[in-house]
């Protein structure tokens, strides 16, 4: 089981957070932490998502990237790690 941190930038649109969480769950990733904020000037949301899974993180990155309101998804390698949980 590996733990990853995704840094996601998204337009501040309806239910964008629900969409991200639904995709993460459906694609086989357990959510172990989340922080989210919105820049009210740009209407861009920044979401840090901690997930755990035995699956490749590329699978989740590609699927979140497909969501219409997503601007960017990156994996923060410094915060990602292999764990035994």
């Amino acid at each position, binding site marked *: 089981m590996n733990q990853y941190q995704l840094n996601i930038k998204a337009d501040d649109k309806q*239910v964008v957070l*629900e969409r991200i969480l639904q995709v993460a769950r459906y694609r086989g990733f357990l959510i172990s932490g989340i922080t989210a904020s919105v820049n009210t000037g740009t209407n861009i949301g920044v979401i840090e998502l901690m997930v755990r899974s035995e699956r490749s993180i590329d699978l989740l990155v590609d699927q979140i990237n497909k969501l219409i309101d997503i601007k960017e998804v990156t994996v923060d390698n410094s915060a990602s790690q292999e764990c035994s949980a």
Partner: protein
Amino acid sequence: MASEQKHTGGSLLFSVLQEHGVKHVFGYPGGAIMPIYDALYDSEVEHFLCRHEQGAAFSAVGYARASGKVGVCLATSGPGATNLITGLADALADSIPVVAITGQVPTGAMGSDAFQEIDVFGLSLACTKHSFQVTDINDLARVLHKAFAIALEGRQGPVLVDIPKDIQLAEITTTLEDVSKLRNKVKLPPVDVGHAISLLSHAKKPVLYVGGGVGMANAVDELRTFAKTTNLPSVSTLKGLGAIDPEDENYLGMLGMHGTKAANLAVQECDLLIAVGARFDDRVTGKLDEFAPNAKIIHFDIDTAEINKRRFADAAILGDLKVNLPALAIPLAIDDWLASCQDSKITNAWRYDHPGENIYAPAVLNEISQKMPKNTCVTTDVGQHQMWAAQHMLFNDPTNFLSSGGMGTMGFGLPAAIGAQVSRPTDCVIAVTGDGSFMMNVQELSTIKRFQLPVKILLIDNAKLGMVRQWQDLFFNGRLSETDLSDNPDFIMLATAFDIKAKEITKKSEVSEAVAEMLDHNGPYLLKIKIDAQDNVWPLVPPNTANDKMMESI
């Protein structure tokens, strides 16, 4: 220059639909969508009243798949909206552009468990490409334009727009947007075909694996030119049928669980698999670890997320097939491999000399395929009849074979045929169905009656849920659990009750005349053929088994 016009939300909806060229919609009215149906009264858009919202959704899917246009369906809030869900899931699984409009309780009542209120916006997250809920009349036109753009751009799919009743009633003065300025905004990295060309030119046993993405990309001509230039042997997925010319001598048929022996053996033996608009679905690959075990992969797709999802791609070609296929069209020297594939095709060709007097469904489907008009559109439901149709009928374009591939939805065939017939009123449309599937949306016979749609229905009746029965016999020790349908209604009486001419045949000797009568009939027609309940679909690759280990009989 367009002038400002006064609209209600309802009338604005139909104006925007017309801006996008929508002439036909499928739906069912109800309380929370009444202002939209009131605006429909004055609209030029033609509405087809279905008898269940699921029928409306599948008709929109059939319309889209048969025509290449966006299918549109309407439903009210609550149960109307939830009844659309299966159709939207089907459209998502098969990448079909549909725009679904749902009525919603007024914004002030939302979240209060109001009568016929359901959070369809929430429900839509897992079964649409995208969805919207309009809470400001000033957003309505922009959202609707965006819904059409999203449904069509990149990998196509369904989009839901939920409109509360007060937004439908609200008034606005606005100028309609010029839809010609709406552009496909999919961004993809630049394509490097160098490695793919190297793989192609060094391959000794390459195979072309064609999926539904070819038809969705409107790239049938480019694919056929590619196949002709490279001279590649080809195989097709269920949804890819019709993309390759079925008369092409290098075409080996459908691959996968019920694929032809020649197709599956070629793929298992190949050293290079060129996947075009295909996604290595589990019904195609069988045991994934043993699928095409010696092959490198070139993967063409519009969807980045499909690359490396189920099988690593040695070369990924992302983007528009119409542009990318010609870039790899180089002649190949693979004569020995081609000859081997062609020999296998001849050796393993279908046989129709079925013994006895009972009707053999594959032979009937093959006969219909030979006799039906050239541009006939065939829809299927899901089960044994679906696989027999895919195996034994030939289609010259993907828009002529509509089958629920990804979702495998029983009840798809009849309403999809209605949508196809509405979109192509002068073409022959045949719904091939089974007695289990037919009953799932049988109410749509009423839609056929109301609009006098000349849909032909071939009902293959074994008084069983045939495919489940087959699996129970093969893999569950013959314990036949809830697959007996011997108490089916009298289908001839049923069709007749909807003013649909109907006939039943039970013997092989009656087939030719009955098929001719069905095809020659001007209006709707139901032909029921009684088959042996023990007939199975062969070949069959058992679950979690490599595709070259198919069963060919019990």
